[in-house]
């Protein structure tokens, strides 16, 4: 690389408007690219963080979600004494037979629309089984009462979710007694009550799932084998982490494909912008290029120089794009989790890797857009250009 970069930087500064517009075009693409992937990222990580390696989720055989599963009381009581379950300080097995229903609630902001929210009826042990769940305000629902603990991501988005307020559904009042967080996971988009209160309120006869915590994380295979072979019931045994990762897959990959599709279409526009700018730069600098060639700079140095110029403009665009996208980080949004048709709230997640990918994407756009103009520059006919 023989031609000094100062030459490129100063030449870019000599035509500030076209440089800025080209960079801006690339900045927009990079911002959208990062934004959409941050969305996919946030969604996937919310679901992935929901599950723990040490937890086991038992569903009816063939059920692909808790919604479509059912576990009768008899099965639940056998599962309650599964030998691989961990025991808490009170010596009780950490097993939680759970009721999983979806209820429609009106939103605070968009009063016309309803959203499906997960209501999970849990046992007292659930709070030990899910170790990422933490009550941040109030106290846990008391046994035998219509009380709710509301996930942090629902608070403020649905009416009457403040601690001390009362929600009405399933024909009865439910007092909100606490809020909980769960490490940003999908649990934060759920409401938890006691399983024995939720089941009759929803006119159910059965649980939907049984979750338990393994005493030894390595005991999963053994638990799976013995439970799935048990003749008294037919169940599927999932590792909780794998189950949630699986749930995020469909929507996660759709979001990613969409991101790639939309940004590719936009990228074509940005690349053409760069092509235009660089062709204009080359034709207005023909005599300069001819001088460089007569001085003994090789055609491929000229090609490299113009490619670098295009890449620098694109890199500036990439940095601007990153700055544009960065405020999205942590912003909470929601979507329907297609595996349960309930709403799940999650935060845009911009990682350093994603920013780097955005910058690389920008430089690639710049190089693609700069290639043909740079090649033309390297082929400038010296004699004609100086006549």
């Amino acid at each position, binding site marked *: 690389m023989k031609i000094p970069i100062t030459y490129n930087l100063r030449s870019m500064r000599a035509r500030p408007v076209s440089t800025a517009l080209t960079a801006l075009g690339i900045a927009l693409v990079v911002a959208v690219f990062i934004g959409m992937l941050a969305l996919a990222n946030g969604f996937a990580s919310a679901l992935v963080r929901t599950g723990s390696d040490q937890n086991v989720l038992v569903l009816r055989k063939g059920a692909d979600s808790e919604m479509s599963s059912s576990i009768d009381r008899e099965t639940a009581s056998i599962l309650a004494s599964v030998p691989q379950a961990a025991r808490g300080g009170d010596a009780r097995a950490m097993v939680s037979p759970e009721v999983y229903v979806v209820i429609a609630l009106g939103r605070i902001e968009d009063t016309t629309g309803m959203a499906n929210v997960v209501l999970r009826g849990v046992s007292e042990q659930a709070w030990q089984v899910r170790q990422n769940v933490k009550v941040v305000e109030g106290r846990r629902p008391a046994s035998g009462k219509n009380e709710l603990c509301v996930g942090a991501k629902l608070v403020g988005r649905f009416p009457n979710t403040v601690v001390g307020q009362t929600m009405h559904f399933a024909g009865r009042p439910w007092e909100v007694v606490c809020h909980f967080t769960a490490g940003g996971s999908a649990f934060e988009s759920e409401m938890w009550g006691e399983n024995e209160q939720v089941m009759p309120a929803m006119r159910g006869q059965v649980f939907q799932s049984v979750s338990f915590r393994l005493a030894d994380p390595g005991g999963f295979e053994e638990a799976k084998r013995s439970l799935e072979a048990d003749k008294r019931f037919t169940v599927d045994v999932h590792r909780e982490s794998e189950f949630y990762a699986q749930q995020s897959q469909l929507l996660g990959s759709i979001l990613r494909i969409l991101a790639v599709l939309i940004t590719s279409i936009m990228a074509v526009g940005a690349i053409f912008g760069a092509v235009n700018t660089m062709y204009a730069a080359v034709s207005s600098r023909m005599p300069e290029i001819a001088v460089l060639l007569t001085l003994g700079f*090789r055609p491929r140095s000229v090609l490299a120089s113009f490619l670098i110029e295009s890449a620098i403009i694109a890199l500036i665009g990439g940095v601007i794009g990153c700055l544009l996208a960065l405020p999205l980080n942590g912003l909470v949004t929601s979507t329907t989790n297609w595996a349960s048709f309930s709403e799940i709230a999650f935060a845009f997640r911009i990682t350093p890797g994603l920013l780097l990918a955005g910058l690389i994407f920008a430089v690639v756009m710049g190089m693609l857009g700069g290639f043909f103009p740079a090649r033309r520059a390297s082929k400038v006919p010296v004699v004609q250009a100086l006549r």
Partner: protein
Amino acid sequence: MALVEIRDVYKTFTRGAERIDVFTGLTLDVEQGSFTALMGPSGSGKSTLLNLIAGLDRPTSGTVRVNGAEVSAMTPAQLATWRSEHVGFVFQSFNLLPVLTAFQNVELPLLLTRLSKRERDERIRIALGVVGLDDRMDHYPRQLSGGQEQRVAIARAIVADPTLVLLDEPTGQLDAKSSQEVLTLLARLNDEFGKTILIVTHDPAASGRARRQLHLEKGTFVEQGSLVP
């Protein structure tokens, strides 16, 4: 052996159906250390001849040798390297890159050498000193007069210490006083530094400074300088 040996060179341009035969069997020697003025009417092929010597263009047939190397047979990449080592070129108008300072413009040929930054700096200072512009190093071309610009271009042409300096109407756009400065400088480069100089000019004052005058007319020489002592 002459520094530049042109043997039986033909050069034909075709523009559409039109054929322009600029040279039909041109032969010329330019001695090492000479100062030659090349004159002739417009269209007689003066620029074309300089371009052939510098390897910027190729003869249709015939050979061009400089310092024993056959320029007309080199590949473009070989030509680029060869030119950076052996030829300094000054054009009539467009010479300097407008976004670089005088110093940076003069530095360009040295970026193709293995010289260190310190050695380059020293050479640039010397070259700009020779052309009398060491106080204008950080000026941009638009901050210089036409004559000063041409002197920077000459500094750039000599900074890498080439054997041969080719100038195509370097005073064409200068007033009489600036022209004189440039010509005095060229005479000095030839006298003091032993540079071989070949200058294309319409200016009688310029050709007067040269030790040999060549007149090109319709592609052949009408030599005068060697006949009139």
